[in-house]
């Protein structure tokens, strides 16, 4: 029987696994997390007194259902938790768990690798106390901790409002929610946002709840910098009317929406195209998630769609895989799932307009701002490299010259900004300056993991 391996234990990976289990297969589910659920539906440890029902709010039932689904099939899958997949080569995954390297061969692969925050550099963004917006939620669900006492939620993302509410419920003082996109952009995006009226209504409800609680909501702001000596002391912004303001705080949750984790998809052979709405390079798939021979992508790791789309696209990918194995397809169910995924991804495209990636912030960054936090490469060093005679105009060559994107995170956090900085400095459209290529290991591993791999060959 074919060996099917799924990477990722969030909603997409769990739903894919459940479809395969129902079809009589025993899939392998490899999850870097210690417990299934992924980032958004992350379950706290049993010994942490966290009211997840209250934290998850309107999504509490879905959260419980997903975890119940996982528990119900736990014995019918091979679940490898706490396991990093750092490479894909010749139909095998190279993994590392608790320091032990292992190779997992596969006949078919479903990648449900999820997303990380997309970040635009900002003066002061490397100060202790500035964390990603997603990270601010993760540390609350995973450890029952807040990133600070008095928090500014800054960037552009619908999750700013959700996270701010979760923090307030948990006892934090929310100094402000600062959105760098103006309200007018929300109106322009309304046609796509109406693709999911329920989700839209939820977003409006979050804003209303925060406003009622007296939390300042600032729209259309320009982020100027995070200030402090050795720790966050405040955020400087220009508000929508052009007035400069300083907001005192001891922590900042910062993010501009999500970015798919596509490194493994690239190593597994997926092709990429530039998406002008997200302004990101995304892997190419058909409507059901096929990305190449025996390769399927699902969830936010394929394209940002949110948790509901992740579940539905996970099911679609598993059905596609089964169909490609010659199994019969439940056509009415597939049609329903395709409609659902299409609708939710259209909604996310609306969100990408309503909460825009701040391209103008990249152009306005002072030269001394750090662009690559791993290697401490500044925006000015990148601009200078491009402006030398016959300087590079492609991001991988800029990386080779400046080390931006060459550090520990492999360009995960500086990559999208590097594209904009290079585009701005050489006057080429962002689609024409390329994207950072992924290489194994996709996350740093100790040398012994590679040497053990050589020995098992």
């Amino acid at each position, binding site marked *: 029987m074919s060996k099917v391996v799924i990477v990722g234990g969030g909603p997409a990976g769990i739903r894919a696994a459940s479809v395969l289990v129902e079809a009589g297969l025993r899939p392998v589910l490899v999850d*870097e997390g*210690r417990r299934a659920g992924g*980032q958004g539906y992350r379950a*706290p*440890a049993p*010994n*942490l*007194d*966290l009211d997840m029902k209250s934290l998850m709010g309107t999504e509490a039932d879905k959260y419980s259902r997903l975890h119940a689904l996982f528990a119900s099939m736990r014995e019918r899958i091979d679940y490898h938790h706490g396991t990093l997949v750092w490479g894909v080569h010749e139909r095998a995954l190279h993994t590392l768990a608790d*320091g032990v390297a292992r190779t997992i061969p596969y006949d078919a692969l479903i990648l449900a690798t999820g997303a*990380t*925050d997309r970040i635009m550099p900002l003066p002061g963004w*490397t*100060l*202790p*106390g*500035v*964390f*990603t917006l*997603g*990270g*601010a939620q*993760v*540390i*609350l669900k*995973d*450890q*029952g*901790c*807040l*990133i*600070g*006492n*008095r928090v500014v939620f800054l960037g552009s993302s619908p999750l700013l409002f959700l996270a701010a509410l979760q923090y307030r419920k*948990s*006892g*934090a*003082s929310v100094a402000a929610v600062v959105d760098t996109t103006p309200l007018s952009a929300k109106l322009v995006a309304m046609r796509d946002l109406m693709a999911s009226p329920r989700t839209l209504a939820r977003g409006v409800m979050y804003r209303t709840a925060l406003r009622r609680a007296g939390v300042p909501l600032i729209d259309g702001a320009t982020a100027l910098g995070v200030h402090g000596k*050795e*720790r966050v002391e405040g955020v400087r912004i220009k508000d929508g009317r052009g007035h400069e303001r300083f907001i005192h705080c*001891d*922590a900042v949750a910062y993010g501009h929406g999500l970015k798919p*984790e596509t490194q493994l998809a690239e190593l597994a052979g997926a092709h990429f195209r530039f998406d002008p709405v997200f302004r990101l390079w995304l892997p190419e798939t058909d409507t059901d998630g096929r990305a190449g021979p025996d390769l399927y992508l699902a969830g936010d790791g394929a394209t940002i769609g949110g948790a509901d789309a992740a579940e539905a696209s996970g099911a679609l990918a598993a059905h596609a895989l089964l169909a490609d194995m010659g199994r019969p397809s439940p056509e009415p169910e597939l049609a329903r799932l395709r409609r659902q995924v299409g609708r939710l991804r259209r909604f996310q495209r609306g969100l990408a307009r309503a909460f825009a990636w701040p391209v103008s912030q990249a152009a306005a960054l002072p030269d001394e701002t750090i662009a690559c*936090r*791993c*290697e*401490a490469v500044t925006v000015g060093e990148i601009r200078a490299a491009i402006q030398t005679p016959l300087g590079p105009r492609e991001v991988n060559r800029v990386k080779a010259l400046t080390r931006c994107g060459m*550090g*520990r*995170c492999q360009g*995960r*956090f500086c990559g999208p900004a590097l594209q904009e900085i290079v585009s701005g400095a050489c006057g080429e459209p962002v689609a024409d300056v390329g994207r950072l290529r992924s290489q194994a290991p996709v*996350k*740093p591993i*100790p040398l012994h993991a590679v040497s053990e791999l050589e020995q098992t060959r």
Partner: protein
Amino acid sequence: MSDEALGRVSKGQFVRVATRRGASLRLTVDGDPVEAVEGDSLLAVLMLNGRAVRHLEFGGEPRAGFCLMGACQDCWVWLGDGERVRACTTLVADGITVWTDPRRSGHV
């Protein structure tokens, strides 16, 4: 209401808002004794007790991690046996020794 009035004065950057039940653990960080509870991540312990995880190799500025989900690698610390770990995805074990600078771990 001030933070003091809310009874949430923390000696570190992070503020714990949910009770953790479980065995008490002891560890040392850069030679100093620190207490934790079973299930705590190393990063949570470092940030509940301080304001930085480490100092950058380039220039020495303080860093405290960033993504908190194992992606940015900005929270590397070293265990007593020289093993390098991400503080955010590593659970504290009783009796471990943690160094925030690899040169002090004695294995570099």
